[in-house]
């Protein structure tokens, strides 16, 4: 069928057109409905692409009919298909939540613009994952980043503007570092296509240009990743953005940067160049451990629950880069599956907190005292997702930490397993602190009038929370796919 052969292009064109249409609308509800239709179409396309890849191998789509490496190629293999489906599924699940949440935080006449920005962000994120051309990645990276900056700036608090500005400066520096890296690679190899780059870097070997490109690439992508110590933009951006935007970005934006890092390390530069010739593994390990411990400790002392969750995100990203640094089958599987698991967990946590903000208007922990007694189902969802962050067996977080621990043991670094467990204990403290305030104190003045949110907000929260438990018990969709993606990456095939 004609449509099925054009699916990779449709994956990008549909949200892009949706964004343009949204910009012309004047009514918030119509704009939300358009975004809903587009968001629900995305996982259908991504799911079809993933099914096709699992059956018959990677899909290569030449944009405009121009053959790679002269033209831009969209390439879907197991890893990119997995990420595509994950991003579009998150977007689809949280869209019903947006109608009430966004309307309560953003002015009526600005609602269509918000949904325009959201659809542009979705386009950019899907584009980064699906494209096989290095400079095309930069274009989509900036499409998603610029719409992210604008989305964050639409938050109610005036500190959202400063947060968006700081994120803009740091994010643009990161993107420009990425462009420098691509420039160095291009002047060395003469091509921009990932597969072609991989072949030609193999010929060039480990020259100083390749080392410089690797360094610029790592720093640039780490700025987008919020890898410690380049995470400074994240707490303010997540705390002051509209809740729906925070939930979407926490689940997807940094994960796409992780996809980029993995793609470049394993598919373009190759395992040998990155991990055997240069000490990338040790550097990433140190930074990951610093993130895991430092960010968890700082999370414990936050007064704003959204900032606490933001620092928790920085720590969890440390787990993912820990898995990349191990660079063996189990470690990389742990990293990739934690991308999926943490996305679901953090999204559900932010949605639950968003429901509390929707009902009470505040996100300060002390103001939310006793909220569990007034919003029991929401708080129960928060508790379950919090257990998943800690890594209790039976939840998705445990699966990720299991694979990371196995990966560390396979490398012979058994002391890393102790550190892994120790940082999980830190997350018990900050999750437990909020649970204690929410359940075991009498309701404050602001949380007295709260009740569970309406169904359109409740269903996405419960869906995601059930997902965190389901993917901790049945890992055929998440961990097995991640394992297949990891072995494909380590084997050097695309």
């Amino acid at each position, binding site marked *: 069928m004609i449509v099925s052969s054009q699916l990779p292009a449709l994956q990008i064109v549909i949200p892009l057109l949706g964004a343009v249409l949204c910009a012309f609308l004047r009514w918030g509800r119509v704009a939300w409905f358009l975004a809903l239709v587009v968001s629900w179409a995305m996982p259908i396309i991504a799911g079809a692409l993933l099914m096709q890849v699992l059956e018959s191998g990677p899909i290569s789509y030449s944009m405009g009919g121009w053959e790679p490496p002269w033209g831009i190629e969209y390439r879907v293999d197991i890893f990119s298909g997995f990420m595509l489906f994950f991003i579009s599924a998150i977007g689809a699940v949280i869209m019903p939540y947006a109608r009430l949440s966004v309307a309560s935080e953003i002015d009526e006449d600005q609602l269509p613009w918000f949904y325009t920005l959201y659809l542009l962000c979705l386009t950019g994120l899907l584009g980064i994952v699906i494209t096989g051309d290095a400079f095309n990645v930069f*274009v989509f990276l900036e499409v998603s980043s610029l719409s992210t*900056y604008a989305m964050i700036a639409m938050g109610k608090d005036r500190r959202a503007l400063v947060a*968006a500005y700081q994120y803009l400066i740091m994010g643009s520096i990161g993107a*420009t570092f990425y462009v420098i890296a691509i*420039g160095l690679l291009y002047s060395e190899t003469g091509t921009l296509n990932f597969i072609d780059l991989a072949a030609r870097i193999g010929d060039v070997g480990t020259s100083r240009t390749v080392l410089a490109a690797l360094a610029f690439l790592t720093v640039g992508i780490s700025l987008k990743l919020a890898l410690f110590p380049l995470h400074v933009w994240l707490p303010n951006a997540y705390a002051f953005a509209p809740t729906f935007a925070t939930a979407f970005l926490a689940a997807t934006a940094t994960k796409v940067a992780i996809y980029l890092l993995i793609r470049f390390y394993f598919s373009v530069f190759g395992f040998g160049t990155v991990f055997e010739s240069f000490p990338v593994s040790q550097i990433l390990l140190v930074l990951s451990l610093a993130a895991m411990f430092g960010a968890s400790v700082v999370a414990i002392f936050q007064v704003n629950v959204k900032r606490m969750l933001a620092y928790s995100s920085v720590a969890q990203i440390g787990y993912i880069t820990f898995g990349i640094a191990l660079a063996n089958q189990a470690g990389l599987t742990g990293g990739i599956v934690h991308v999926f698991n943490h996305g679901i967990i953090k999204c559900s946590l932010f949605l639950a907190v968003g429901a509390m903000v929707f009902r009470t208007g505040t996100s300060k922990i002390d103001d939310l005292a006793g909220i569990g007694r007034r919003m029991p189902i929401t708080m129960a969802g928060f508790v379950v997702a919090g257990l998943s962050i800690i890594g209790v067996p039976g939840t998705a977080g445990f699966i990720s930490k299991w694979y990371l621990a196995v990966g560390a043991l396979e490398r012979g670094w058994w002391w890393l397993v102790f550190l892994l467990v120790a940082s999980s204990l830190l997350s018990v403290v900050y999750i437990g602190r909020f649970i204690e305030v929410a359940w075991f104190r009498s309701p404050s003045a602001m949380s007295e009038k709260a009740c569970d949110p309406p169904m359109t907000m409740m269903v996405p929260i419960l869906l995601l929370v059930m997902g965190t438990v389901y993917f901790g018990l049945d890992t055929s969709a998440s961990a097995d796919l991640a394992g297949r993606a990891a072995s494909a990456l380590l084997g050097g095939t695309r």
Partner: protein
Amino acid sequence: MTFGEEILAHYNHWITIFLMVSGLYIVIARSNMIKTLVGLGLFQTSVYLLYITPGKILGGTAPIIMDDPSAVYSNPLPHVLILTAIVVGVATLSLGLALVVRINEEYGSIEEDEVLAKDET
């Protein structure tokens, strides 16, 4: 080539590096938000030079196909990439300036220290 000649041969990269480092320094050292955006623009401009200057092939002419089969053409691809990057830079600058306008409306200042100090209280 002697060492001095070799350094002079790469003068285009020296200019690029100088602009790059100046731009980054302005971003870090200046607290005025407009100046930070100017520094960011300077930093991005240096990257354009990084792409375009190696694109000029020695003895190459403009990349328009001629009938002469032995013609050597300069590389047109870096120019295409940099046009895209310039557009991205313009979009970033305009978004940054819009944010600064709003920050000025809300805080009454565009000095980053003053703005952060107002939030401390």
